[in-house]
């Protein structure tokens, strides 16, 4: 959890806006440090977290989590964290074993045309906590869905429209019905103008229409720098009441071993 980012977003584990859909995107850069931030943030906030880790193994997320001061293993044991390890699950779908009674969340791998309904069913049961209501179990806060990352689904052959349907249903359940939060990562390669990868560009636009807060990470326009790793554009959408529609702020960041620092443009300690 990065305290500087918390102050930018005006949130803390004790008090944060509920019902938000946070879209994290990156272009020719890596925004996965923000996924680790939100994972540790919501675990500290004692939320019930459903994490779709489609890119890395559980060990990876656990190792990074430990650096940020949370233990994913413990959270999983306590029932706070529901973790879908995409890499393992996909293997069990592709190489089925007789004694394999795993859930069918990754069924779309067999036929991507069927859509992501089974994955949504997994998310819904994870968020509502059905099937794990043991007596004496700890009570958790509002449910949170984290996805790392949605673009992988496109690579696996799922259509952009199907991914947008999936995110719509997740938002309806997590943000509107259960008043929890949702964080999704989308990756875009190539330049915006070039139309390098049409699918992920379309996905990003579709999700931008759905989200309430967007964090867009990109490299520095001036090229590589040792002390500034890139810039992140924070965009608040649909702020109600004050008549303001979108508010944008741009920050530069540097990722450290156990955190990240955010600063206004041109105010890096290496420059000043």
């Amino acid at each position: 959890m990065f305290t500087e980012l918390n102050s930018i977003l005006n949130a803390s584990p004790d008090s944060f806006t509920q019902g938000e859909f946070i879209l994290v995107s990156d272009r020719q850069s890596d925004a996965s440090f923000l996924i680790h931030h939100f994972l540790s943030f919501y675990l500290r906030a004692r939320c019930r977290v459903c994490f779709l880790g489609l890119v890395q193994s559980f060990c990876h997320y656990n190792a990074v989590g430990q650096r940020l001061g949370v233990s994913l293993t413990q959270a999983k044991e306590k029932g706070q964290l529901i973790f879908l390890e995409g890499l393992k699950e996909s293997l069990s779908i592709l190489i089925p074993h007789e004694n394999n009674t795993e859930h069918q969340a990754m069924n779309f791998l067999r036929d991507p045309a069927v859509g992501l309904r089974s994955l949504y069913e997994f998310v819904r049961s994870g968020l509502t906590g059905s099937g794990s209501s043991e007596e004496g179990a700890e009570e958790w806060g509002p449910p949170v869905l984290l996805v790392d990352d949605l673009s992988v689904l496109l690579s696996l052959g799922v259509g952009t429209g199907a991914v947008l349907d999936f995110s719509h249903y997740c938002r309806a359940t997590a943000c509107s019905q259960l008043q929890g939060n949702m964080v999704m990562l989308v990756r875009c390669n190539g330049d915006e103008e070039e139309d390098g990868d049409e699918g992920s560009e379309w996905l990003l636009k579709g999700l931008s229409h759905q989200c309430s807060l967007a964090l867009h990470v990109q490299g520095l326009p001036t090229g590589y720098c040792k002390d500034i790793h890139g810039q992140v554009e924070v965009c608040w959408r649909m702020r109600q009441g004050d008549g303001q529609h979108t508010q944008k702020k741009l920050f530069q960041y540097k990722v450290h071993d156990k955190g990240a620092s955010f600063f206004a443009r041109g105010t890096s300690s290496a420059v000043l």
Partner: protein
Amino acid sequence: MLTELLQGIEAGGFLVIQDSCSYSGRHLLKSFINAALNRAEVVHVLGFDVSEEELKDGLRTSDTQRLHIHSAYTDPLGWTERPAFTVHQFRLEDLTDLVKQTPHPKPATLIIDSLSWILRHVTPPAVCKTLHQLRKGGAVRAVIGLLHADMHQRGTVGSVCHLATSLIAVAPGAKGDEAVAKITKRSKFRKVMQDEEIFSLNGDFTVTIHSKRSNPEQNWNDAEEEQVDPTAELTFNLRLSDSELEAKKKLMLPFVFSKEKLATLSQPAFLK
């Protein structure tokens, strides 16, 4: 012209509010809903994009007799067992049934939030057909739809917009809460009026017009007729004046054998 449209759309009218992810047109759509409620019209809202609560936020919900929200947000594809309205029900018969569920002497205004959701699942010709039938059918007085233009191919946006009697394309303005609306209005006699206005929305979704563009009313047909003179800025003359023509005639070009030249060349001294 925006104020004019807010004051009322003619019967059988179809208004499209076209937006992109940089500026949401939903707030302007809410202005139109409030304006219709103020005129004591019956309004039916078909909501796909946002939840009923979010849609109701800022609306004059005291008019429960005249404001009917049909939320297709929670289950637009019928993934759960009891969908209220699915996207595949976007047909004249189902929509007429929906509107007639609450009988009212006056025909209603139908608000669609958004057409983009429908266009992702129903083919553009089918959507256009339904919209056309709705306009002509008489079950609804007018239709107002939100369209996220950046989520569709240009042809799809074009075909829907072509059907509209009025089109408002919104984009972010230069200042914080200001926005630019490009308005195209087609009258019954197919006269096309265009206008560009800078506006801002207040907390109660009333619209404040700040300025109009210098050439506010321009007729498209006139624009087509007004042809630019291609010979206006040529760096050479296309025709010669009389004196120039005379000078040109007098000019003796090389390798043209005049009588004198021929006589000189045929002298014995040359022939040797």
